[in-house]
């Protein structure tokens, strides 16, 4: 043990480099977003479907903040998605047709609900958390379903009008505006989330995931952080919900059903939690598969999704993305040892 000697400059520098490298954009990240944008130009591409993929990816990413980074499972994440979707729907129905401001408003309402949920669950852990979030989901779902005067019940909201984005781009049936609107909004929120997970607060969330008791003895407001994480995740989930309403001009109870909460969890698990991209990868696999399978057999497609989930969790454990990453790492490591 070296006694009382300050860290040499080189050692210090390596610390700075380490954190700088962690946060730096990787080539595959740029390729990923470029490929997503490039989908627009592929002939015969169903752009409405692609915008749905992007929206689901954003939704799953918001759950990743809670599950992947803070380690909180939630079975009621559709509460925030549905809240955003319905708020955007009410805005469009009652004359607030400008989409971007309505999106912000939907995010704010979802964030407030997220913060309250966080306050409610911050002392609960494990299975209790699953039950409370599930319970909240069921309450809201039933409320929306029963309040036919307010929400249109089973039929959903009628007469939603969304003005052109920036007064220039009208939402059309080919999904041209829908695609770019969903992609740009999702990308901006992705960047914000990426900054967050690489920030001191992001590190504190991971610390609390790893060892909440130790975080308390370091003086961290662990319970408050749960509320903050819920608030941020809810805001982004709300944005995803609002995007769905605005791009399709419809909103109905399934947007906040328990099924939706389960689906988004499945998407994140398939893609891999704690990676930020897991949600998007999972959404691509899940939504495209859903689209393909339901066109073959509209009734039985959940059979295949179930099978996929069992296979992935059994053989890839942490999801597709971490498994691919591990494979790649092994490949890179092996390279220098290759026989000359």
């Amino acid at each position, binding site marked *: *043990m*070296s*006694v*009382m*000697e*300050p*860290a*040499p400059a080189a*050692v*210090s520098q*390596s*610390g*700075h480099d*380490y*954190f*700088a490298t*962690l*946060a730096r954009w990787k080539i595959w990240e740029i390729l990923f977003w470029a490929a997503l944008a490039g989908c627009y130009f592929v002939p015969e591409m169903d752009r409405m479907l692609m915008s749905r993929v992007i929206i689901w990816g954003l939704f799953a990413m918001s759950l990743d903040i809670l599950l992947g980074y803070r380690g909180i499972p939630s079975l009621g994440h559709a509460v925030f998605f549905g809240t955003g979707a319905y708020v955007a729907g009410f805005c469009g129905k009652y004359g607030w047709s400008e989409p971007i401001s309505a999106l912000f408003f939907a995010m704010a309402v979802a964030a407030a609900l997220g913060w309250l949920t966080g306050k409610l669950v911050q002392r609960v852990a494990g299975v209790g958390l699953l039950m409370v979030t599930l319970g909240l989901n069921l309450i809201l779902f039933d409320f929306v379903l029963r309040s036919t005067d307010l929400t249109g019940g089973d039929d959903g909201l009628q007469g939603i009008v969304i003005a052109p984005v920036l007064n220039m781009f009208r939402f059309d049936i080919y999904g041209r505006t829908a695609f770019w609107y969903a992609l740009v909004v999702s990308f901006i929120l992705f960047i914000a989330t990426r*900054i*967050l997970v*690489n*920030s*001191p*607060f*992001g*590190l*504190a969330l*991971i*610390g609390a995931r*790893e*060892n909440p*008791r*130790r*975080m*308390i*003895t*370091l*003086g*961290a*407001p*662990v319970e408050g952080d749960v509320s*903050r994480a819920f608030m*941020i995740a809810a805001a982004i989930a709300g944005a995803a919900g609002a995007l769905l309403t605005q791009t399709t001009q419809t909103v109905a109870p399934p947007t906040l059903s328990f099924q939706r909460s389960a689906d988004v969890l499945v998407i994140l698990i398939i893609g891999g939690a704690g990676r930020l991209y897991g949600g998007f990868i999972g959404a691509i696999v899940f939504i495209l598969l859903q689209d393909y399978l339901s066109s073959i057999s509209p009734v039985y497609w959940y059979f295949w999704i179930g099978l996929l989930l069992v296979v992935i969790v059994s053989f890839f454990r942490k999801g597709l993305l971490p498994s691919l990453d591990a494979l790649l790492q092994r490949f890179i490591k092996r390279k220098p040892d290759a026989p000359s």
Partner: protein
Amino acid sequence: MSGIILETRHMRMAFGGLVIFEGIDFALRRGERHAIIGPNGAGKTTFVNLVTGLLKPISGTIWLDGQDVTRQSPQQRVKSGLVRTFQINSLFKALNPLESVLLALLERDGRGRIAWQKVAAEKQQIDEAMALLARFGLAGDAYTLTDSLAYGKQRLLEIVLALALKPKVLLLDEPAAGLSTQQGHEVFSQLANLPGDTAILFIEHDMNLVFQYADIVSVFAAGSMVLQDSPENVRKSPRVREVYLGA
């Protein structure tokens, strides 16, 4: 009584019907190096848990730096300078030592809620984290996952995390547990280098370490303090022998 930094008055504790402390009065002075010894089940760790706020006493009060902190949260007590380590390592397994120490430093400096800029921007804290790790010979392991560090190094990290908070009162729950004799002495010689006004209260079973590094020794047995005296007097006391070996 400005010399006293940490005090318990008639602190009473029980788990269900099992009484741990009937009502314990204890005082720690500023800058003191104070050892708590006693057989297993004497209530030593419970004492630390009560003082740090992980447990709440049934009655009695706890005073830190002249303030009644009995109702304060563990976090508030940490902010006031009361910091502990755990008997069983309580670390961040999936983080490396650099990230772990940085977490502590960011919380200490109130920068843990910053969500809009990169960790890499916290240059001062990164430098300090590296310097701390280097002081304890952990610089070479700064990027190794904590989970795959050797036990002795994890033990050191446990202490570095506490020191990173610049405590006024440091509570060490068996810091040398599981370390070799030499490693134990290295840890304590590092602790001896801390600023003179840092009070250290440590639970320790290794009597060589206790007698070498403590100014004063408290002997706990069956939920009460049976003796508090200088190391020499404790060593000679027939009472202590009785407590450990049974009369």
